[in-house]
């Protein structure tokens, strides 16, 4: 590390992407929000205070999401951990998908949990959601303890025995009162289709 190059000439530079760095990350308190779900009911993160919460970023037009719903990944996890008191909230920050579009998806896929409508992307930006899917686990203290990919198999080409299911692993660890061993991974998927 050297300081040989003068830096003063750059001091007036303003950095345009400061908003990115402001998004919450692992270890941070999960940003609070209130959104309408696909049935029109207001849902706040604070409704689930003291519970483990999973946030799943959704875009039904994204092939990665389509594959995971076809394979039953989300439904399987939601079912398995619902019994253990884990709350599953799906957030759709796709700019063109309103409550009706999300309700149609829920109907088609048999989603029996809440899909939150975030067309203006506020909640997506607060969490720094970049991809669909992009997954977050919030612990009972309201802190983000996992952020990243659903698993380590972007192309869906691995056998279940060879795959690491990051969200399931994080939930198992949190439920066992342990620290999450892989708290952050690089998410894969389509970019979130935010409002321009």
């Amino acid at each position, binding site marked *: *590390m*050297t*300081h*040989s*190059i003068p*830096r003063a*000439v*750059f001091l007036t*530079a303003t*950095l*345009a*992407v400061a*908003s*990115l*760095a402001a998004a919450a990350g*692992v270890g941070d308190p999960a940003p609070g929000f209130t959104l309408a779900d696909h049935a029109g009911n207001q849902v706040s993160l604070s409704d689930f205070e003291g519970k483990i919460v999973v946030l799943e970023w959704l875009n039904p*037009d*994204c*092939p*990665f999401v389509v594959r995971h719903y076809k394979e039953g990944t989300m439904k399987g996890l939601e079912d398995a951990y619902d019994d253990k008191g884990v709350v599953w909230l799906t957030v759709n*920050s796709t*700019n063109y998908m309103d409550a009706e579009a999300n309700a149609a998806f829920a109907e088609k896929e048999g989603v029996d949990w809440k899909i939150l409508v975030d067309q203006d*992307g506020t909640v*997506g*930006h607060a969490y720094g959601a*970049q*991809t669909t899917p992009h997954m977050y686990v919030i612990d009972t203290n309201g802190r983000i303890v996992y952020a990243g990919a659903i698993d380590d198999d*972007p*192309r869906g080409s691995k056998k279940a025995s060879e795959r690491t299911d990051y969200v399931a692993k994080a939930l198992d660890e949190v439920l066992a009162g342990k620290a*999450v*061993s*892989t*708290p*952050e*991974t*690089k*998410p*894969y*998927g*389509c*970019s*979130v*289709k*935010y*409002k*321009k």
Partner: protein
Amino acid sequence: MNRIRFSAFGLALALSVLAAAEDSHVRARLVSDLEALNPGATFHVGVVLEPEPGWHVYWRNPGGAGLATEVALELPDGFAVGELRWPAPVVFVQPGDIIGYGYEQLVLLAAEVAAPPGAAAPVPVRAAASWLACKDVCVLGSAELEAELPLTGEAAAAARAAFAGWRDRLPRPARPDEVSMSVTGGPLPSTGAAELTVWLSWPEPPGEVDVFPDPGPGLKVEAVRTRSRGALTRVDLTATRLAGSSAPAAVLPVVVVRTDGEGGRTALELDIDLD
């Protein structure tokens, strides 16, 4: 997923070097610059991907979202296939300021191949390519291609066009007289984030400079901002060593691309020291 079959509809004798799937928005073509198989010859085999206008495919680091393109090559026993070479990508900003790295125009991803002594033509070769193509939506695509080398006719002409100027678009290690680098803001903690500033000092004003980070597993790089003044380029970035990763990265490889006034691009490889 669009899986393209090459032995369809009774054309069993026609080896297909070309795949154009109507739904994937990308045309894929197997190419090679092998013209004559001399003993100990080295040549290149690769896949040209040509996205439709407005669509893009991704670099090996896709950026904040997306999926790295994959190309797998299969040659007969004894042929040694090197690493896939990636021409310098471009950067695109997707809605929500999500940065992507990839290709918006025709790109050739190819590897060097060394023939064993005594190898004889024709050389059968297969290539499997898969990619994510995005415009307003994203579509997964793939192609399985095969050919016998040397290529002939139209396939050979298309391959010659694809390889023309290709080497000049490949990043190469930076020479000390081309650019010198210093880093401030480190070291990076063993887990967690640090803001790093990389200073690139050029022999003359560099033109436009883009920096493409290529972090290994366990390292996250975000918010790369580049600004040049005179012959000095300041690159700010946020690097994070992810907890739970087995081998903490000591360096961050980057590809630095200079674009001159005429649009000519020079791509250089540098390693940023993180400790």
